[in-house]
């Protein structure tokens, strides 16, 4: 089943929409769903032109396609457990919160908190991601716990904060403090970043671009060879964050960091 949701023109397009109901599972029982526009509850067809093609008997046969002005729509795919969501343009904050399985593809940019505290499944963002991509929410001790999150562009600050499991791959650069408070899992940054992995206690972070302002609380170890897109790359290995008796590994491409 393919469900296409195309946004209708809105008088006030800046008012955010809270759309945690948009997950494949919910469309098995039809399209009679509601979302909030600001503080007003709206039915799905007040916001979108809806077309449904084909049948489905289980949620993994459902594909939801979002088109149009989707940059203000929040919480799409929250608690998603199967199926597929494709966002043709940009997507608002909190896309893929707590998702446990399935696949989300964002062809444009994603706003903050993409895939926060996700537990499984896969998110691919073809544009840039905002701050706190793959992070834990305020006060939470554990962020992303499983699954795979890939961003083909850049990511903002606090990428993968409190990462506990799973894999985060950023093809571009990231902002400040990626992997801060990391506890497990794997973080790969192909571009540059500043101050990675502050207070990390576990897990592995690889940076193939430049690292600015590497924190002084990391202990240098021997060099290792890592395969990166078919090339053998020499990496400096760091152990830390020793300020808090951390046991994480930070690998940075040799000779490339100030």
């Amino acid at each position, binding site marked *: 089943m393919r469900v296409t949701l195309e946004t209708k023109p809105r008088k006030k397009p800046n008012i955010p929409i809270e759309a945690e109901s948009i997950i494949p599972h919910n469309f098995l029982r039809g399209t009679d769903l509601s979302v909030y526009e600001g503080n007003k509850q709206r039915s799905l067809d007040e916001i979108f032109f809806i077309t449904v093609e084909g049948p489905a008997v289980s949620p993994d046969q459902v594909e939801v396609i979002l088109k149009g002005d989707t940059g203000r729509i929040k919480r799409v795919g929250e608690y998603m457990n199967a199926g597929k969501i494709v966002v043709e343009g940009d997507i608002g904050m909190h896309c893929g919160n707590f998702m446990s399985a399935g696949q989300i593809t964002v062809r444009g940019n994603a706003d903050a908190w993409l895939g926060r505290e996700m537990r499984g499944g896969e998110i691919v963002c073809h544009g840039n991601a905002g701050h706190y991509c793959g992070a834990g*929410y*305020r*006060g939470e001790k554990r962020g992303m716990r499983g699954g795979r999150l890939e961003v083909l562009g850049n990511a903002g600050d606090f990428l993968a904060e409190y990462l506990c499991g799973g894999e985060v791959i950023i093809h571009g650069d990231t902002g400040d403090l990626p992997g801060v408070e990391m506890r497990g899992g794997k973080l790969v940054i192909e571009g540059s970043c500043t101050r990675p992995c502050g207070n990390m206690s576990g897990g592995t972070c690889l940076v193939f671009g430049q690292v600015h302002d590497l924190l002084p609380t990391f202990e240098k170890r021997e060099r290792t060879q890592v395969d990166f897109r078919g090339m053998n790359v020499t990496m400096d290995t760091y152990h830390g964050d020793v300020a*808090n008796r951390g046991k994480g590994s930070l690998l940075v491409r040799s000779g490339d960091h100030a």
Partner: protein
Amino acid sequence: MSELLIKNACVIDPLNGINGDVMDIAIRDGRIVEDVGSSAEVIDADRCLTLPGGIDSHTHVCGTKVNFGRYMSPEDMRAGRTSRNGSMHVTSGYSVPTTFGNSYRYSTMGYTTLLEGAMAPLEARHTHEEFTATPHQDMMANTLFDGNWSVMEAVREKDVKRAAAVVAWILSAAKGFAIKLTNPGGTEAWGWGEDVSSIHDTVPYFEVTPAEIIETMIRANELLRLPHSVHLHCNNLGVPGNYRTTLDTMNLVPDLNSRRQSLYLTHLQFHSYGGTTWRDIDSRSEEIIRVVNASPHIVIDMGQIMFGRTTTMTADGPMEFKLYMLHHNKWSNHDVELETGSGIIPVYYSKKSVVNCVMWAIGLELALQAKNPWQCLLTTDNPNGAPFVKYPEIIALLMSKRYRDQECALLDPRTEKRVPLMAIDRELDWNEIAIMTRAGQSRALGIESLGKGHLAPGAEADVAIYPIRTTEIDPSAQFQQVMAGFSRTMYTIKRGRVVARNGEVIVEGANSTIWVKPRVSHEYDLGNDPEFAKKFQQYYTVRMRNYPVQETYLPRGVCIETEADL
């Protein structure tokens, strides 16, 4: 004139010796009266359990440290959200809810009076502001004197009258209710990076011991004729083997008051540990309770822990630091100038942890072994042991051996060898529960004469009607009904007005704050004392004239004036 008549109420009112009589209660203008006219509004209690409004004699619901617990735990604030509903405010939070959240949840459980467990006098304004936003309960505040410089100087000079004068001035200034000592001496030692490990250790610089502070304050308390006794959180909280400190402390207490206890020991569960480390911790509730049973001038509260997530908060800064060293989670510590300190950390009590299981058992053992329920009151030291919404579960555990056995089967198997709980068969009855949740508190806090905690004509019309027919249910088998009944009242009546019905809060209340003002002679009025004023000039960040909380902060203050022997 508003009149209300509660018909067919099955009343348990231990202070007046009523145990399960079916009777009518008449209320006029917020007070209980002999009878009312025929035009009075009528509530049919339908032979359900009717008790005086609940009183919590030790809870942390208002003030700076509670608020800091809220800042620190945004994840807690995302739990338990309720939306605005008529006059009801939005609420959120589980272990440290918003003030309205606290108030509404207490109200639906039938509680109408609360004692905030610890208020730093310097930060009293904040506490009083939050009191006015806790609309369904009358509030009181324990005022911290554990590390007060002026008090410790008076103790060093063995001048009880001077200590009493300091208490009198600060209590009136902070609009507090009673003297609270939290790890006396220890919080000040913590300012020097140290702690005290027994009641005979000395505090740096001041050269006084916790024992001297406690004893002086008990005597000062009686000189001032305060309604409540000294409210003590003993030294060495949460340390394996600390029961010795607790026993030493209890042996210090002189019997000075015929109407009530001379010392109130709070959350005693945290102070009844044997063993030497976390590995061999065991329960010493039997030793502790033997002394309590033999000392009618001591009242304790349980400080029961319940399994699950909560937040610990106390003025005991060093203890919170030790907890941080165990958990390595987020924590906070705070120093209050010349007075005290505080600390907060979130915790999770787990049935898989033998330490937590022993703690859980000790709380229940204290209540089950205390011969006199007037001496052991029901609390969780909310939210330190558990959020107060767990009270109904605790009541059910105390009333049902079968429920306890069912829960014990889920504990870490090593627990059984370390605690006597499994061998205790006692099941408390309805009257004992009524004593442990309202009547005992009223007497211990000395607010019986204000009309709290009983239902005789003249008393405040604070009434809780629970959907329980005591003659029809067997609490030892039907503990689920007991739990459900105590979680939601049919009616909670605050000062003659129905504030909650069937678990729903229906009106915005208007509470009052009870505070104490001891009247002392001119000679002992520290307002005129140059030595005391110098403290403010030299050390405090606040000037003496700006220090007292103005009465505008207590829009409905009720002042108890006492005639001090000074």
